[in-house]
């Protein structure tokens, strides 16, 4: 674990991402304790106040609601929904992938063709279709985003599971009298867990973005509930006259997605065993020579190795 942390923070960008994400998380967790006005409280008199106005640090929106309060509550919601979607997608997708990879044969074929079918639809279109079928709402947006990402996990994890299922320790486990379920849970799962974590850390940013996208289109959170996408959507109509209403949630989305992706890349690099052993550094075309001491004299032989030390 300490090796992991050291590796992670050796990567400057990942460390930066971790710090930014950490700050955002602390802010968001403390939100209910902060002395903020009610995010849904409208006040038509104070419409479109500029940032740094008295009482409203980031100004107000088109209904006079406090932007800072809405931003923090919205971020809370967006992060929660994005993380939940990632977790659901990872759980379902990985289970499908492990089952397909472990059993192979016909089960594998049927499952993976179904997954292929899901993948054949354009990403956002599929999400839109799911939300359209289920009706708008944050919960349904979450389901849609999770569903769209299931194939990604299923494919990735199946690949790993197929490789592992052919390994001898799985056969050995079968010979020690374990059933299929137990082999999957106690032998296979611990070995694919790092891959799942890597896949999750690199996709959670996208999922936050996608939920925001659905909310932006009005298919996610319903007014007056604030989340980053819907704030952006509401601010859109006043983009020219009062840019701060859309810039504030936009910057937050940017910060979150960027920090999550930087951190995710860092996590992936740190967990990748090839990187840890330094195998990715290319060898030179010629062995480095650092000789100390005298060079022995020549002999008559065709090829003579003399006092060689490596």
């Amino acid at each position: 674990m300490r090796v992991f942390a050291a590796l992670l923070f050796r990567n400057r960008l990942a460390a930066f991402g971790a710090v930014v994400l950490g700050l955002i998380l602390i802010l968001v967790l403390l939100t209910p304790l902060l002395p903020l006005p009610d995010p849904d409280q409208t006040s038509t008199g104070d419409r479109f106040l500029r940032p740094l106005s008295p009482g409203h640090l980031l100004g107000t929106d088109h209904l006079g609601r406090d932007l800072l309060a809405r931003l923090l509550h919205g971020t809370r919601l967006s992060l929660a929904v994005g993380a939940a979607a990632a977790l659901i997608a990872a759980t379902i997708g990985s289970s499908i992938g492990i089952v397909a990879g472990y059993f192979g044969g016909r089960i594998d074929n049927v499952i993976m063709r179904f997954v292929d079918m899901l993948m054949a639809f354009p990403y956002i279109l599929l999400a839109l279709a799911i939300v359209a079928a289920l009706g708008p709402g944050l919960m349904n947006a979450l389901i849609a985003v999770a569903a769209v990402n299931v194939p990604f996990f299923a494919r990735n994890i199946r690949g790993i599971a197929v490789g592992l299922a052919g390994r001898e320790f799985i056969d050995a486990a079968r010979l020690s009298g374990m059933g299929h379920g137990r082999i999957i849970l106690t032998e296979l799962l611990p070995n694919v867990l790092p891959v799942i974590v890597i896949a999750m850390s690199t996709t959670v940013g996208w999922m936050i973005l996608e939920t925001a996208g659905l909310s932006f289109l009005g298919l996610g959170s319903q007014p007056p509930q604030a989340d980053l996408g819907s704030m952006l959507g509401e601010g859109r109509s006043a983009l020219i006259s009062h840019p701060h209403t859309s810039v504030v949630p936009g910057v937050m989305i940017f910060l979150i997605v960027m920090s999550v992706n930087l951190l995710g890349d860092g996590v992936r690099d740190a967990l990748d065993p090839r990187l840890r052993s330094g195998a990715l550094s290319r060898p030179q075309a010629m062995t480095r020579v650092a000789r100390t001491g005298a060079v022995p004299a020549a002999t008559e032989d065709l090829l003579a190795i003399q006092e060689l030390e490596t």
Partner: protein
Amino acid sequence: MGTRVYRAVGGVSLSVRPGECLGVIGESGSGKSVTALSVMGLVASPPGVITGGAVRFEGEDLIGAPYETLRRRRGDRVAYIFQDPLATLHPLYRIGDQLAEAIRAHHSISAGEARERAIRLLNDVRIPNAGARIDDYPHKLSGGMRQRVSIAMALANEPDVIIADEPTTALDVTVQAQILALLDDLRRDRGLAIIFITHDFGVVAQLCDRIAVMYAGRIVEEGPTAAVLEAPAHPYTRRLIDCVPELGQGKRRLEAIPGLPPMVDALPEGCAFAPRCTKAVPDCARGDIALERTGTRAVRCLMPEESA
């Protein structure tokens, strides 16, 4: 992570004359492969560094020679055969093209001539129907055939020295016998010098004129094959020969050497074999022990075995 420095090879001296075959024998981790790779500067760097000594080819020192000199020698005058032919042959090129490339890297001849020579080479290593096989991809050939192709590749530029690093370890016994016979013929016909690296005493006994036994990065014994095998002077050689089961002796208990070879990063002082040796005296663990030469034989031991 971290900067562990350890000596894989510590002061090894070997030599071959034209037409001679030298066997280098040792267990895994004894430094025999690193020695072989050092000759042409092929040890992966980082982490490998050659820290001392010289490699002389016809008197010219190759260690520290400019890359261009080394590149021209590699494959042309000194060729390698590795253990795994599938790893040496490029999977996506036809074997004929790979052979032709090996020739044209060192000689400027036309593609047609190179192809003709490639076919001749495949014939030389007794690949049946060479004219048709030349357009096969490596994966279509069996293990023995692939190893023949890599031998053909090594012979492509008529080198003076071939360094063969466990060329038959991955092969079946019947195929191994064919490959060994082939190498033996080649050496007699062309006056090739062969450095044959292996862990198999039977192979060495059949092919090599002289052998050098390595343990923990050093040569512990050297001499003519028959003499060393009949009357090993170093306790390690003696015990190692006893370990090898030989065909035709029926069911029996094998001799074993207790303990494990030392790790290269934790070599004991003095003789590296002393902790496993039954004849060890306190002096064995003190200071360096020199390689004593008497006539054609050499041994690095304070308590050499009595010659029978």
